[in-house]
């Protein structure tokens, strides 16, 4: 049996959640019916990234299959804050697990408005801040610079009493320094890794980009080793809990992320190959932790 875990004051049934943007519980119900609610694979549901205004996302093609993984340039399509609150949240509230809403803004003011609006909703248990958004002035990801990130978290921290998880970008020189800045500014947890910036050459050999947006983000087994190193580096430098993700596809991989310092693990790309990947990872993890009970 899986053991319950406490995470930022939340009581979760087990340690496995979904990675933002890799599971759509509403679409899954259209495809699988109520079975997805009765047998929900995750201990919490993390929404895809929500922005203030609706976004259409990037032009196709949005997917490229890479060795042991994929490169995506989805471009964070979403209904925008109002659409999420009015359309998605009431449906998500019917899920049997706590909800985490992932938000992103390109300025501190935008992030503040998102955090305030989500804070007002009792259905949401925690907020995850996606900081892989280019800063309008520097062009660097907001989450790439410890100083910029610290300032951002400082500004929005007082706006919510809900747990605030900062989702770190791996595309930075010193991810542990960024994690420390988030902790110092009052983040309750950090999650990592997001996708690694990546380029997919067109299969026709012309050298031009395959993805509609030019570049994308690499995920899946290909990033697991990088994820483990970053999870370990961050865990060594912060006291707050860490949500580990990046290429987790089995109980053994989850165990490795936990050994590197993660409290929770998130399953992303593997759910595309198998909608029950989250359940499979949890059962595998249980079997490793209680080898006799699993027999």
């Amino acid at each position: 049996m899986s053991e319950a875990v406490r995470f930022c004051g939340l009581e979760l049934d087990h340690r496995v959640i979904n990675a933002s943007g890799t599971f759509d519980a509403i679409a899954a119900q259209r495809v699988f019916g109520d079975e997805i609610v009765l047998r929900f694979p995750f201990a919490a549901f993390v929404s895809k990234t929500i922005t203030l205004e609706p976004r259409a996302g990037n032009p196709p093609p949005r997917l490229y299959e890479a060795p042991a993984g994929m490169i995506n340039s989805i471009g964070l399509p979403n209904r925008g804050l109002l659409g999420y609150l009015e359309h998605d949240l009431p449906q998500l509230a019917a899920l049997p697990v706590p909800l985490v809403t992932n938000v992103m803004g390109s300025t501190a003011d935008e992030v503040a408005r998102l955090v305030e609006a989500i804070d007002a909703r009792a259905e949401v248990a925690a907020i995850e801040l996606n900081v892989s958004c280019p800063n309008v002035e520097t062009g660097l990801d907001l989450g790439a610079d410890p100083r910029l990130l610290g300032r951002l978290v400082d500004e929005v921290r007082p706006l919510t009493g809900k747990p605030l998880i900062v989702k770190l970008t791996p595309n930075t020189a010193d991810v542990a320094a960024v994690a420390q800045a988030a902790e110092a500014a009052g983040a309750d947890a950090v999650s990592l890794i997001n996708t690694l910036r990546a380029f997919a050459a067109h299969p026709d050999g012309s050298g031009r980009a395959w993805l509609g947006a030019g570049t994308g983000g690499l995920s899946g087994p290909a990033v697991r080793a990088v994820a483990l190193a970053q999870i370990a580096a961050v865990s060594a430098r912060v006291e707050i809990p860490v949500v580990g993700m990046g290429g987790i596809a089995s109980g053994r991989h989850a165990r490795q992320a936990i050994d590197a310092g993660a409290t929770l693990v998130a399953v992303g790309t593997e759910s595309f190959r198998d909608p029950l990947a989250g359940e499979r990872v949890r059962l595998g993890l249980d079997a490793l932790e209680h080898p006799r009970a699993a027999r």
Partner: protein
Amino acid sequence: MSAALPPDGGSRTLAPLERRLLEVVERREHGAYVVLAAEDPDGPAPQPGQFCMVAAAERWGAGADERPFLPRAFSVLRADGKRIELLLEDVGPGTRRLCELRPGDGLRLLGPLGRGFSAPPGDRRAILCGGGVGMAPLAMLQDELLAGGRDAVVLLGFRDAEHAAGAKLFARARVATDDGSAGRRGLVTELLAEELARDPVAIVYGCGPPAMLETVRALCERLEIPAQLALEAGMACGFGACYGCVVPLREGGNARVCVDGPVFDAERLASCLAPGEAA
């Protein structure tokens, strides 16, 4: 039997949440195509036009270019409650690996997925128009229409005679080939234009390469004839999770081919061509 054709906007057959491990029981070659049949005792009856995400149970990975990694989308060719048939054309590492499978080998299959074809409105005559491997979802549609006592004209276009051998999968079909080595020399859309000129009280069901579908779409739009088109798109998941498979809609915004399609009413589509692609 497949599930009955739903009325427009009717419900879809839901997929079991679990990927099923199926045993291949038959492999047939039809010219350039391979038909794989697998035992699927627990599979619900799919609707014509629905599809599955499929991977080989063993050695899925590290082929050419170190792929495949993700499962691949295939229309249900036929399903009868005990077995399911898929039609494959070897175009890359994923389809090549699946074409290698032999009776006794295992498949991992998730489905049926997506929204399939709906019944012809009123007494419009059904014209099924397929290009190449795009004929796959039309076979079960023809079976279902004929079983329901309706007419179903099938028009198929192929590169050459080797591919046209696939037409044998249909109760009856008229064929066009690019090189004239089987059937009429020319495009299947020319057969369609003639058929529609003869009797325009029709509905067109189409599936095939983007350029062919775009011709079908434009023709039906001009003649004000309803059409249901089954689209393809690169897919990672097949169940709405990744947002990778979008097509732009005429009304604005995008739809996900895997959950909002793969079958769309033609009037909802701005174009069947990928951006920047020439007809």
